[in-house]
């Protein structure tokens, strides 16, 4: 939950900072830039969650938050590079491929976590780690 709310707050923060800065004098902060910055924040939040949490389920979730950041970044790049015929399709295709790869890796990680749980009764790698 903490992670999710952090992710949400970062989105709000990104949008708010954009609204504050997108005045006519500073046209630098365009919409794709807001998405890119949000994506970077998501990536870092996921990283923080991955390092500080010990529960395997949370680890997999943190990795997916990081992945979400990367994919958001790619989609923002596609939007920045939009030509007359629409957004750049290459980052879109990379995102799709990345999502499927992340799905496969997450499915395997969850299966492995459940298998470990069924053998050791622990949902974490270091037994006795109180930190969830």
């Amino acid at each position, binding site marked *: 939950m903490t992670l999710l709310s952090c992710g949400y707050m970062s989105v709000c923060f990104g949008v708010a900072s954009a609204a504050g800065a997108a005045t006519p004098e500073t046209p630098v902060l365009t919409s794709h830039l807001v998405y890119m910055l949000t994506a970077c924040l998501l990536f870092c939040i996921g990283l923080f969650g991955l390092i500080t949490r010990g529960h395997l389920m949370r680890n997999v979730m943190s990795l997916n938050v990081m992945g979400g950041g990367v994919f958001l970044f790619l989609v923002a790049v596609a939007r920045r590079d939009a030509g007359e015929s629409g957004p750049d399709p290459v980052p879109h295709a990379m995102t799709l491929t990345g999502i499927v790869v992340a799905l496969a890796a997450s499915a395997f990680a969850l299966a*492995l*976590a459940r298998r470990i749980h069924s053998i050791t009764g622990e949902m974490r790698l270091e037994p006795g780690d109180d930190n969830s």
Partner: protein
Amino acid sequence: MIEPMAWCILAPFIGASLAFLLPGRVWRRPIAIGAIGATLASVWMLTSQVWNSGAQRMDLSGWPAPLGIGLAADGFSVFMIVMTGVVGSLIGAYALWHYSDLSDATEPAERRLFWPLWLILWGSLNAIYLSSDIFNIYVALEVITLAAVALITLSGKAEALVAAMRYLLAAFLGSLSYLMGVALLYATHGALDLVIIADQERAGLPEVGAFALMATGLALKTALFPMHFWLPPAHSKAAAPVSAILSALVVKASFYVLLRLWFGVFDGPAMYAVGILLGTLGSAAIIWGAFQALRQMSLKLLIAHSTVAQIGYLFLIFPLTARRPSGELAAAGWITEACTGVSYHALSHALAKAAMFLGAGVVLHVYGSDLLTNMRGMSRRLPITTFALAIAGVSLMGLPPSGGFAAKWLIVTAALGAGQWWWVLVILIGGLLTAGYIFLMLRWAFISEDAPIQLRPANMPIQLAALALALLSVLVGFRLEEPFQLLVIGDPFPIFDLP
């Protein structure tokens, strides 16, 4: 029409598909042998093609880069592919026995799944060495990760599963970090092809950020100190052939990608500092890994910690090929030695480490445990395996004449030429510590047993696989001309050109 580059990837993939579809006992051996043979034939054809007519490049799907994906083979790619081919097929020979009815170490399910997993892994290792596209490399890295982790879990033991989970999380993190770097590079250059990106003007901060992310991710996958925490359990808890594959081959793939980025993409005032940092971490790995290996009481853990140390030597290439902020090269005139030395170290380590893990597999099979204290009397019971472990150790220590010696000699020459004498000191201390843990390991083999114990008989072919790898790791030290010539084909380390 025959295109060796494509077949180096296609042959293992066809083998993997067949092995997955026909898991029966009857088919296993013909499919495995056929896939190994076809892959080796493709590797041989690719080698002679590149040797005779220079570097190759082909466009996949008929679309030249930037729209399509390019495959490219230069001397360095071929060097790595040959290494994978030789080591991989000898490990395969051992695995043919290990995953058959002759071995009581494995369950039927493991035997069914080993070959598809290993052949897909082999194909994607070749795919990495041939790929010229940074996003394609990401996908291939993920294939390697999943296949490697699945191979660790094959044995189904709880400690192997926990080690596999830790490895999977670390490697997943590494992949995402690399992918974020790919996204940043695409946002900077609008292309994914390594050659196109290398030809464009250097772009400052976005590129530095991309390199930082990609280098961290790849170093995590290569288990560079202090990001090596996942390696010793993952490599030591797997079955012997899997340990050999992971330690000898898999960690080299991510290092290869890092090297490609270092030479192709990254340049600028920060280069020297980054190079020194990577070299320092490598040195720390050499000392720390060897020190930890000295303290291990089980053979496979000792060998796995030794891998952490040996990976450190690979990272000495970065300070030796970096450019000072003033623009001149740190080791101008010695770059060839540095690059050849490190490539050679990758090769001799792959051979020696595969030999040691296969030897450890024999010990585990015969003694039922790999505790060093249990290995008493091994020199008399398993002379071939003891000999294999000993000469693989010679190569790891870097005693002449061996592949390890040639590699370390070249690195030392380059370091002295560059005036960076401190790396020489690290290599010397590392060599002494390596000698320490090798002797510690072999000491038990030469102590005669207290009381005769009942042991399982050892099987000759598997001992010979370990011996062949160990002998090769020494023999490669005798011929340096061909690798020297191979490694400059197609100019894989483009810094060579610069003044």
